[in-house]
């Protein structure tokens, strides 16, 4: 009975964390939708993640797999996995997501990401 209660608590905690991330993503994707952007494609998000621009890509700091931790290429600071399935603490705060999209798209692509691109990447990280 005790074990059952524990499992129940842990499961509830995990689900609710995931829900928060899912809610944040849903809310953001809703804000990205307009006449041109109607749906988001995980595969397009994946393609953008791995695409290289002047020797830079998302993998420069996040590593070869978003399901694994890696180190910042310059400072050596550990960067935790981005995939929600292994790191449910990711993508739970809208302002934080937008802040890092702004910084990292500018660094990697030399420009801001479009609403379509951001929605696609979120879709992919959520499904991984």
């Amino acid at each position, binding site marked *: 009975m005790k074990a059952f209660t524990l499992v129940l608590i842990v499961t509830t905690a995990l689900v609710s964390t995931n829900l928060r991330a899912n809610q944040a993503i849903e809310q953001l994707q809703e804000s990205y939708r307009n006449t041109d952007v109607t749906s988001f494609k995980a595969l397009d998000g994946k393609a953008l993640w791995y695409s290289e621009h002047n020797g830079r890509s998302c993998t420069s700091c996040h590593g070869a797999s978003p399901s694994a931790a890696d180190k*910042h290429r*310059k*400072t*050596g*600071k550990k960067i935790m996995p981005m995939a929600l399935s292994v790191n449910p603490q990711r993508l739970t705060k809208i302002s934080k997501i937008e*802040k890092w999209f*702004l*910084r*990292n798209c*500018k*660094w990697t692509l030399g420009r801001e990401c479009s609403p379509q691109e951001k929605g696609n990447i979120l879709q992919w990280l959520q499904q991984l």
Partner: protein
Amino acid sequence: MIGLLKLLRWSTGITLLGSALLVGLYGLSASSIASGYKGDHEKENPNRFGFASETNPAYQEECDSCHLAYPPGLLPAQSWTVMMSGLDNHFEENSELSEDTRLEILNYLARHAAQAGDKVLRGSKDEAQTRITELPYFIRKHNEIPEQHVKNNPGIGSFSNCDSCHQNAVQGDFDEDRITIPGYGRWDD
């Protein structure tokens, strides 16, 4: 007669001991007065280098997500101002912040920045130097360390990762007796 001699010896002893104690007490109070002339953060934390007892959650959150939140007293206010004005190219990284957060962090750094006369600024001619590792003081302090100990060391990579070797750097503890170089062990100066 013998009684009088004993009394004389006793009172001489008391006088000598008393004067010694007084001189000692004066010495202690004089040194605490002298410490009042040190820079602000040194006065706050005489043994902590550049450390500010006031912490700032935004500074921790925003800066520590990529690197050690360097003790603010390691650079003068002008350096922090220059650094915080170019966050879109922060040592070739983009670390842009909202204007509110940027100003909050800059104010915090400026409040606890190094001041003229602080030892970290000794010999420094560039008042807007943004690289702590290029301060003459820093260079002097690290000139005995072989390059392969740091730059070619996978556990460190760069002199800017203070806390790789000064494990309590975030508290401003750069004491020479508490240095451990990854892969090489304790460093004895």
